[in-house]
């Protein structure tokens, strides 16, 4: 079967790719476009390690077909830092040791950024529920929640 020709925008750049109909967006990102920052922890939308933004909405790239990217705007972890300047969330995750192994970190950061764009002043409970779709097995979430709260406070002050 012929591959699908898809025209989309990824991290602000126009991108074209060919994909099989069954290929997920995560497969396309990782295998075809070399964007391996999004991780596959489960392939079933349970772990959130492949979290990306699709037209401003948080999504699991493993639950989306590559062909569905047509005409949309996708943001991945690779687009989070502005040039050499890390996003405040990225800075604070390093500063506050909000990661251990780091495999869940890209997904957590994409999800946390989505939260702060929607709610710049979340309560701890709101952060915990928003990130409930992002599994982390190393940290117990404590330092992740703190880093997100601290970043929110910092971004509100600036």
């Amino acid at each position: 079967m012929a591959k699908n020709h898809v025209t989309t925008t990824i991290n602000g750049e126009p991108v074209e790719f060919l994909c099989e109909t069954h290929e997920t967006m995560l497969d396309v990102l990782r295998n075809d476009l070399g964007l391996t920052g999004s991780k596959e922890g489960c392939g079933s939308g349970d772990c959130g390690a492949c979290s990306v933004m699709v037209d401003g909405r948080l999504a699991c790239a493993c639950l989306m077909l590559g062909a569905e990217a047509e005409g949309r705007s996708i943001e991945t972890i690779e687009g989070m830092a502005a040039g050499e300047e890390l996003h405040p969330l990225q800075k604070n995750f390093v500063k506050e040791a909000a990661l251990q192994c780091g495999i869940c970190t890209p997904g957590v950061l994409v999800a946390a950024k989505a939260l702060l764009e929607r709610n710049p002043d979340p309560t701890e409970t709101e952060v915990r529920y928003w990130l409930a779709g992002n599994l982390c097995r190393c940290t117990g979430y404590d330092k992740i929640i703190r880093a997100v709260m601290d970043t929110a406070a910092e971004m509100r002050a600036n």
Partner: protein
Amino acid sequence: MAEKTYKWVGTRQPRPDGADKVTGRARFGADFDMPGQLVGKVLRSPHAHANIRSIDTSKAEALPGVKAVMTSADMPDMPDEMAPAGEVMVNLRDVTRNVMAREKALYDGHAVAAVAATTEAIARQALALIEVDYEVLPHVIDVDQAVAEGAPILHENLRTKNVDGAEDTLTNVAARIQFTKGDMDSGWSQADVVIEHAFTTKPVHQGYIEPHAAVASTTEDGQVQLWCSTQGQFNVRGYCAKLLGMETSQIRVTPSEIGGGFGGKTVVYGEPLAIKLSQKAGKPVKIVMTREEVFRGSGPTAAGAMDVKLGATKDGRIVAADLNIRMQAGAFPGAPVGPACMCSFACYDIDNINVVGFDVVSNRPKVAAYRAPGSPVAAWGVESAINMLAEKLGMDQLELRIKNAAREGTKTHYGPTFKDIGMAATLDAAKNSPHYQTPLKPGQGRGVAVGFWFNIGMDSSAACHVGEDGTVTLISGSPDIGGSRASLALMAAEELGVDYQKIRPIVADTASIGFNFLTGGSRVTFATGMAVVQAVREAIDELRARAAKLWEVDVEAVIWEDGCAKPAGSNVGDFEPLSLAEIAVNAGKTGGPINGHAQLNAQGAGPGFGAQIYDVSVDQDTGHVTVDRCTVVQDVGTAIHPDYVEGQLQGGVVQGIGWALNEEYIYNDKGQLENTGFLDYRMPVASDLPMIEPIIVEVPNPNHPYGVRGVGEVPIVPPMAAIGNAIAGATGIRMTDLPMSPPKLSAAIDAARVSEAADD
């Protein structure tokens, strides 16, 4: 020991791999590719126990795009004996059979064949074309059923004569071990109060978010390059060399960044298969497990069934302790029953102890290590029973533990006599914690439990390379699973007296640094840390020698202080201090490159003790447990990087909360695993949890230059029992079987209501 003050050790610096890991740049196992690589996929048994009569791969081989197919026939069989593989003693007969089934499939998910194809779709299609003729056999999952008379027998080589049977019959018991101390009869005769109860745990998975992944590239002259996610690249090399009949020098293993392991990435699964497929196909082969394969095919931890009996005097002195524990090894021998038995009563000073343990095989994946392997299973029974004893004695649960705590001079039931341990200090810190001093809210229950892990040393190598500008590359062979690069760099900075940022730590492949035992047992900051300190000190000796040469004095007349060579005293001469950078830039003129190397077998690991406090609320209708507050107290020796020490404590606790409340392997009546995804294997998520309050106790380990003990294992030991104890406090119901999930707890609450109503 006098309080030492450090410039770098004990500070919270950004980790050297931080930017890589927050930008998606860090390359984990599945992120590595080779040009022209093939996709490897593994065919797995749908049966829990079956003879394999034959495997026909011809249709799969004929499929266009398929470049190689393999079965166990492509690997040499191995003798039934213990052999070293990367310094771990393993039975290679079992390892080769676990990697790929031979005469029998022994669990649902057991690998039986593998293919390499140009695309994943073709590889999957090829798996479907492999015809395996199975003769399905009766199976057994539960440990006590596996030792019962008439149980299905897994192996022909396990016989009672090797255990303790008078007759020589086939058995599922691989080993029996016993530890005794004192005189049990005397102990029971002193006891005013006796508690006796049975407890069980379910198998749980380590739950690392990154599935196993490996890429192998081989050449016609027998060389192998392997990139994989592992806790021990040298152990992977050792296993693969043995399993494939190769020499270790032919195999170069490069560890990727590792997305969690917790003990589960200390063995091999797809790695030798990728190598063999690559050899057969003549192209690189990449094998990445799916999540379902991780659950079905990789090692969970052992489940256990145990009977605990404790005797105490009226005033709360424990005088006798007995544990009989049966542990499920999975399909091949090797449950962590030794550590379970040794850790069981290690927190206490008890005169009379008898511990018996059994290593039992059953039709489940072969267990792999999981954080303090064995210790949490024993602690579930022992620490629950301690609270039952406290209830019967009418004593506070923490006071009973303080009264019986292991101290300096306590002789353990497994041999060593403790010196310089922090059990008492840890319990005092728990007692004085804000948490323990805060009264419970109505409806809440509070539970306490303690835990122990030996911490280990083993082999490490390290190198310290001084660059021409005076910055330093620090090379170790210990995969960084949770911030150890930062800890190693902090110790190097402290030794060298230079800025932490001037030290760049890297994790090297098997060809670029000497042997390192795997990352596990809480050994890296201790053992690799010792190697780092020694390597840096060797470099410092060389730096001093270069300064001595420039100053034309004896090397003994030069000291190293604050990052500079200085004269040892005013009589040496009037020399301005020479900085690391100043010496480095002239290295070529004073004798060439300046490096330090060290290789050692680290002795003197310091035992680790912890105590944890939980406040829980229980929904009386649903049986749902909420952890309202949690404090984790632990003696870590010295916290080199407090953030990552806290992280280990918090992470271990939350894994324990999952183990306590939800996680379990669920099998159907055919012995097939039913919950093979994160939706049904319910690990804790952020909204399940409160903040986890860490209290770091520092009783330095005198055998380490910075007092390190090790951190990572102990935190997972107490949670299950502590939460069970808290549930008992909140509901009056003593749970004895893990997990304490809503269906089980609500059934227990309902049963208690019925029983109360009957009493009225």
